[in-house]
Each structure stands twice: as C-alpha cells, then as structure tokens.
C-alpha cells in the first residue's frame, strides 16, 4: 500500500472549519427561513389585496343602496308618524260628544206647559256629561208637570246614552199664576241635574266557576 502524505492537511482543515462555521450555516438557515417567510407574507398580502378589492366592491354596492335605504327609513318614520297621529286624531273625533242630538232629545221632552230658562252642559274630564237645566212648569199640579219632564228626559236620554241619572236639584212652587189655554194655572220652578256617559264603561270581571280541588 502506497504511503499517502497529505501535506496540505492544515489548509484543508481550515477550509473544513470555514465550511462548518456555525455563523455561516446559521445565516444560511436564517436566509432560507426568511425567504420562506417572505413568500408566505407575499401570498398573504396578495390575499389581502383580493379582500380589499372585495371590500371596495361591497362599499360601492352599499353606496348605491344607502341613499335609497336612508330615504326609505325617513319615509317609513314619516308614515308611521302619520298613521299614529291620524289614529289619535280619529280617537279624538270619535270621542267627541255631539250636542245636536242631545238638544233634539231635550226639545222632545219639553211639553207645552213647561219652559226651559237655562241649559248648562259640560263635558267632564272623565268623559261624563253633566247638564243643569232650569225652567218653569205650569199646570194644576205644576210639580207633576216638572216630574213628567224629568221622567221623559230620563227615558229619552236612556235610549242613547249610558249611566243616565236625571235628578231634581230644586223644585219649588211659585206664587205666580199663569194663563194657559184660557185657564189659570199654578207654576213651579225646577232645576234638574242630568249626568250620563256616551260610552259603556268596562264591566268588572265576573269570577270564573269554582274549580274542584282534588285532595
């Protein structure tokens, strides 16, 4: 076997040492890793750009629709306002007390031997109507004539209104004598209070049937 002498072993050793330099290897690894990371970053950036274009498309679509939606919102609010206001106004209109039918009924109750001198009517806050009627009645029995008027009024008002109360506030004989149809008749002054409502009040709930309790 031939003797092989390596006279350059020191140089070769140094070269190997240089090649095995950890810093160099590390830098190479870092470079490789950095390149991979850069590629991954670029891939992500490309995706983000794609998303950005989708976003701008969505913004464009929304900008087209937005004025319509804002207008629709405004109109919707306006319409809801109109509907609710009309409802409230209709409620007010329907809830009014109509005086003309009442006056008509009252005129039917006044006989020839009675005269009303004043009528005062008020619509109270709770929806009740309060009427104060003053007048004169004449007849052989003037009090009976006034009572007849009261009863007639009660009957007439009861046909159209609820919770009708017609009561005398005052009833007094007068010394004055009046001539009706050629006959002298006595007179009485009366005052009548009438109260009623136009709507039926809500009935109180009736208790349900008793349940059998099983022991």
């Amino acid at each position: 076997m031939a003797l092989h002498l390596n006279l350059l072993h020191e140089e070769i050793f140094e070269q190997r040492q240089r090649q095995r330099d950890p810093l160099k290897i590390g830098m190479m690894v870092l470079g490789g890793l950095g390149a991979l990371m850069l590629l991954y970053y670029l891939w992500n950036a490309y995706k983000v750009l794609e998303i950005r274009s989708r976003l701008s498309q969505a913004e464009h679509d929304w900008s087209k629709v937005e004025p319509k939606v804002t207008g629709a919102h405004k109109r919707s609010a306006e319409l809801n306002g109109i509907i609710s206001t009309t409802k409230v106004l209709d409620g007010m209109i329907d809830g009014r007390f109509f005086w003309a039918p009442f006056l008509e009924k009252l005129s039917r109750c006044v006989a020839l031997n009675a005269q009303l001198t004043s009528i005062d009517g008020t619509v109270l806050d709770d929806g009740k109507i309060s009427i104060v009627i003053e007048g004169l009645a004449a007849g052989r029995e003037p009090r009976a004539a006034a009572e007849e008027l009261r009863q007639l009024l009660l009957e007439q008002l009861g046909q159209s209104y609820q919770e009708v109360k017609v009561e005398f506030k005052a009833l007094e004989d007068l010394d004055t004598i009046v001539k009706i149809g050629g006959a002298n008749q006595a007179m009485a002054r009366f005052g009548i209070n009438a109260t009623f409502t136009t709507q039926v009040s809500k009935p109180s709930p009736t208790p349900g049937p008793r349940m059998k309790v099983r022991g």
Partner: protein
Amino acid sequence: MKQIKVNLSKNQIQKIMLSGMGFVVLVYVYFSFFLGPLNNSRDTMLGQITELQDKVSNSKSELTKTAKLEKQAETATNRFAALKALSPEGAPIAWFPPRMKAFFASQQIDKATARLENSSPYKETDLANWMRYSWVIELPQADFASLGTAIAALENAEPLLSITRFSVKALPDDPQFQQITMVASTAMVKR
C-alpha cells in the same frame, strides 16, 4: 445506538447563540411588524365586508317593507292631509273667528263672535305638531231650532272641533230667542 459527539469550540458556541438570537429577532419582527398587521387588516376588512353585505341584504327587506307600508298608509295619509287642510296658513286667531261668524251667518244666526280663551300644546307625543285652541263662541240671539241645526252642521263640518261647554239662556225680553255661549276646543296644526 450510535451517538454523535460534536465538539464545539467556544467561538462556535458564541456563533450558534448569535444565530439563535438572530432567528428569534427575525421571527419577532416578522410576526409583529409584517404578518400580524397584515392579518389584522385582513380580519378588519372581512368584518367590514360581512357588515356591508348584511346591510345590503337588510336594505332590500327595508325597501320592501317601506313600499308595503306606503300602500297600507294610503288611507291614513289621505285622511291626515284632509285633517291638516282644516288648518289654513296663518295665525288661527286671524281666520277662526271670521270662519265661525260666516258659518253661523250661513245658518241664519247673526252676530256670532268667537274669541280665543287659551291655547296649549298636546301632551301626546303623536300630536307634537298640533296645538289645542280653546274658543268661546257667543251667539247673542238664536232660536232653539236654528241653533240645533247649526250645531249639527258645525259638528259635521268641523271634525276637529269639540264643544266642551254649552250654555243656553232664555232672553227675558224675548223668550222666543236664546243667548248661547259655547266653549269649543279645536286641534290645529302648528304654523
């Protein structure tokens, strides 16, 4: 098992540590300053896209709802316009008393006067644009039959007018005629 024994010099260990530190710095910088913000902006944009898409899809149903409401509210809109038209332009005190005078004159009741008692806003939020005016209407001389007819016509012609107090007094000198005082409240649009 074969064990590989690596002998590293002090210089080599330092270099390895330096490389390790470089690696850590690289990873930190990469995630903190590059990939992190990029992912954040991507997530934000995706959120925005979802939000906008939801808005666009909701807007279609909103538009449909409004169109439906428009159809449903047609009657109410017409009625509202008619009620609003009962309040002409200008201060009510300028046009309401003449209107009442003309109305009762057309019913053969002369010398009707109307004066403003008070005015106040409504408490209801739905009537924020409306005012309640209270008027005292006086008819110094009217016969009962004409009065009844006139009141019926007034109540039909003025749906927003409500008579809250009504007083009839027989005239002592002329019992055929009566003196009438009414308090009527009206709802009018704020001008």
